[in-house]
């Protein structure tokens, strides 16, 4: 069996899911036997090559994320929404209860740490925030989801290991469902 290609991506999230991924500790060696991690915040790969599995952390919050997730979808055979933010927007989505302008003002104008000149940054090279944060499945088809904030290292390993062995994991049956 040839080695599979694995990517992990960090979109609108806190990177906690990636921290949890690192928590699989020495079991990363078991993963490494079956797959090469070709792109990830934790490895030095710039381009997104064709991969078998992509773990995507975080939700879609900006135009850049939107383009990225469409690209990932094209490149990945199996796209896994990784963590609560990717699955149901979670903390990232908490700005959805307010109009975007209020959110900006709260952060850049009215925050106590801002002085009188505080203003909303508007440089064209910055990414543009979407009005609403959405989970991955509202933009692309998602093949599997791992909820949790963050998901347990055990759960992550279980899912990866099953996929790398061409089996479909079942979180409900494995009693590994967890939100928050």
């Amino acid at each position, binding site marked *: 069996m040839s080695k599979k290609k694995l990517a992990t991506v960090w979109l609108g999230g806190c990177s906690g899911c990636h921290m949890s991924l690192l928590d699989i500790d020495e079991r990363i060696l078991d993963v490494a036997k079956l797959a090469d991690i070709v792109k990830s915040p934790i490895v030095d790969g710039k381009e997104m090559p064709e991969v078998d599995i992509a773990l995507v952390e975080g939700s879609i919050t900006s135009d850049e994320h939107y383009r990225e997730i469409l690209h990932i979808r094209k490149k990945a055979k199996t796209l896994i929404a990784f963590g609560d933010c990717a699955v149901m927007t979670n903390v990232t989505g908490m700005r959805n209860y307010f109009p975007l302008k209020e959110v900006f003002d709260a952060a850049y104008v009215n925050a106590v740490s801002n002085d009188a000149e505080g203003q909303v940054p508007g440089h064209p090279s910055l990414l543009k925030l979407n009005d609403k944060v959405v*989970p991955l499945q509202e933009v692309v088809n998602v093949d599997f989801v791992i909820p949790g904030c963050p998901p347990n290292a055990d759960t992550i390993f279980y899912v990866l290991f099953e996929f790398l062995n061409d089996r479909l994991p079942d979180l409900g049956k494995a009693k590994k469902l967890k939100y*928050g």
Partner: protein
Amino acid sequence: MNTIPIIIDEKKLEVDPGKTILEVCRENEIEILTMCHLKGVLDIGACRLCLVEIEGINKLLSACTTKVAANMIIRTNTDRIKKYQRITTELFFAERNHVCAVCVANGKCELQDLGYKVGLDHIRYPHLFPQCEVDTSHPWYVMDHNRCIMCTRCVRVCNEVEGAHNWDVMNRGHQVRVISDFNSPWGESVTCTSCGKCLHACPTGAIWPKAIVQGQLQKNPGMINELVEKRKMKL
């Protein structure tokens, strides 16, 4: 008392008439999922999780409000019921802003447990993201409407057990909210006795005591029924 024969999930049972299907199932360790049911207060059949199939009746009936009758053949775990339970759970999550990661009830939440039980890994419907208030005006307690699932257990406990009727429901449809008095801040209520029963009745992290942080909530919904039973015994 004479018992009557019924069949639940192919299991033959002899039960007391006058009991609800839910009571019978709980006594016989047949799992029925519920959210709005709370032992000790009246059942209203609102969450629709406890729906069961009864042979000869083409409608699904709520186990908490339907009494057993002789020779009833009841099914609690068909594929159809399981599918509907999942959709109901999804709708609960999508309706308000349930962010488990920052919730005091994380790990001790009946809604989370429900999600695990029905095997819910994601919500297929778009979240509604309503703007909800967090009422912190009460000196000891907080009411967070973001986490409220409108089970109205607090309303019923306050009305039926405490007798204060501080809580009720305003508006209708998807705009319903639990309110205190004339929709005024909880801290200014003239009816609330600050007894704290609603905290224990609440299945989620919507009502909680101040000065605790994520995951520290201790709830004891069973105490409501204990209280009711003790009163009956005039203890």
